[in-house]
């Protein structure tokens, strides 16, 4: 009996290790495939198809991209970095201020304010009225603000922050109030320093959202100079000729065949580059974000 149990327990453990290992590989495999294709030569890919090991390892694709569209990619990188930095900072300020305010229990109308926020999650006017207002009233067509303002305040993130602020004992604020501090100074000097983890978590969530956003550019941006990286990739994928049609300076790129498959993958790698390097270090904050949300549920 006991032996049988031990055997079954072992079996569960073995299945667990295999399943988890397999799923983990499935999750990372496409990334490795993408990277390895981007370092392969176009001829080998055309002959043998995509491979997990780089075929005929070469930097040609990256050279090709930077010779032909280096300035475009750098520009898109600039746009993405700009909207990520400005958007995240703005969003953090706006979100944490309101989250702090409605975490103060003596604020009489805080439930009404929370409801005004909550209602936007459960009911919306839909895409078209939103689009018309943005374009006709706010002039967001081909405006870099169109990539920042519509996503600058997330009600979900606000509630995450409020949960965190609510856990700070209000006696800390009262002491500061007696000393004559107003609530904005309390927010800056007491609440913010005590919530570093929460701020970092929400900040990273906003940053990822801005970095990965292409929906706003699909809707609002036609001007190639304002394409963020993700949308640049999207436009290449939907029309790979966009990059092939770029004039090839004969001297500089001589001898390199026109890559198409490898170009797609190389641009993908360029797009996710910073994420690949950063995510091992920042993922614990995202885990924390999920946990904070789970507490509320």
């Amino acid at each position: 009996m006991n032996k049988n149990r031990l055997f079954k327990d072992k079996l569960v453990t073995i299945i667990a290790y295999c399943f988890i290992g397999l799923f983990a590989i499935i999750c990372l495999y496409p990334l490795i495939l993408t990277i390895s294709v981007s370092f392969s030569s176009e001829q080998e890919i055309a002959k043998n198809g995509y491979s997990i090991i780089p075929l005929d390892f070469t930097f040609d694709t990256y050279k090709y991209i930077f010779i032909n569209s280096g300035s475009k990619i750098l520009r898109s990188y600039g746009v993405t970095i700009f909207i990520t930095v400005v958007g995240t900072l703005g969003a953090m300020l706006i979100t944490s201020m309101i989250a702090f305010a409605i975490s103060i229990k003596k604020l009489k109308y805080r439930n009404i304010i929370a409801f005004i926020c909550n209602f936007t999650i459960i009911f919306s006017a839909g895409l078209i009225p939103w689009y018309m207002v943005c374009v006709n009233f706010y002039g967001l067509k081909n405006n870099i603000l169109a990539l920042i303002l519509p996503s600058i305040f997330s009600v979900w993130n606000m509630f995450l922050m409020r949960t965190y602020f609510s856990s700070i004992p209000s006696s800390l604020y009262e002491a500061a109030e007696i000393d004559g501090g107003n609530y904005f100074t309390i927010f800056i000097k007491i609440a913010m320093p005590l919530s570093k983890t929460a701020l970092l978590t929400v900040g990273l969530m906003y940053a990822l959202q801005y970095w990965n956003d292409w929906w706003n550019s699909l809707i609002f941006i036609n001007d190639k100079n304002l394409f963020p990286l993700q949308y640049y990739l999207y436009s290449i994928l939907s029309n790979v000729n966009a990059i092939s049609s770029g004039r090839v300076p004969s001297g500089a790129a001589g001898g390199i065949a026109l890559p198409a498959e490898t170009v797609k993958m190389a641009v993908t790698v360029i797009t996710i580059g910073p994420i690949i390097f950063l995510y091992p270090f920042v993922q614990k904050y995202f885990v924390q974000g999920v946990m904070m949300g789970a507490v509320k549920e």
Partner: protein
Amino acid sequence: MNSVGRSSKPGRKIRKDGFLYEIKKNRILYLMCVPALIILILFCYIPFGGVWMAFTDFNVLDGIFGSKFVGLDNFKFFFSKNSMGWQVTYNTLVINFFGIIFGTIVPITIAIFLNEIRNKTYKKVTQSMMFFPYFLSWVVVGAIIYGIFSTDVGVANNMLRFFGKAPISWYSEPKYWKEIIIIADVWKWSGYNSIIYLAAMSNFDASLYEAAKVDGANKFQRIFYLTLPMLKPTVVVLTLMSIGRIFYGDFGMIYGIVGNNPVLIDEVTVIDTYVYQTMRTLGFSYSTAIGLFQSLMGLILVTVANKVAKRINEGEGLF
């Protein structure tokens, strides 16, 4: 503060429990809410005015409120035979339904198995790997899917060839794409969602497991008779939340993966992408009507889901 008694005159004299008194007293806190509220008003509340378009035959010259009133015609057209209304509603529900089913089973399986793994390094590394897809945008996922399903060079066809089967030209065969999209959805979110279940499991009472062990229950039994029943409340809440959003398709997912591919798009068009397409072809009024239909269905379902959650969780609703 002798003004309290004769405060019936509006304006200068403010009652202590009055609206203006409260605003004035806590003005700094209220001011801190203003930027966020302005954003919500600009991007969520003002657009409600445009909902009127759904009941008109909008044209640019007459404006939103000057265009001809047509009642529910736009909605009727959506559900008529000439439109894709039923098709896109069906697509949305099917993709979301299977997304919810597998998006629950896979993360729970991951969470349970991760919990069985004692080797810390193995656990950490695999967990990071499974979390990775969460960080990718749908455009990037679309590029990856292209790498797998591209006809000439894709991995899927390479494998088919390896096993001696004829390659499939995936990008011109609509019938596979609902499945591909559902798999991509589960793939992207499972690692992330498993954290929610892991968090729930970390709160379970360890002594229960010890007791079961003493009673001779093996690991299978402990998973089926302890872990799964205790996960039920979490599963119920998360499922209800997903059901509340079952009429909302993931625009980024559909467009990032399928894009504008005219062959595939009909098979996987969801309400959200349909609104975007019809905006340019069938006019603003019609697409506003579809959006409104979607929002109303969402509102109804969220309300119902919230009621159900309250009943199950003893008064604790979703919101």
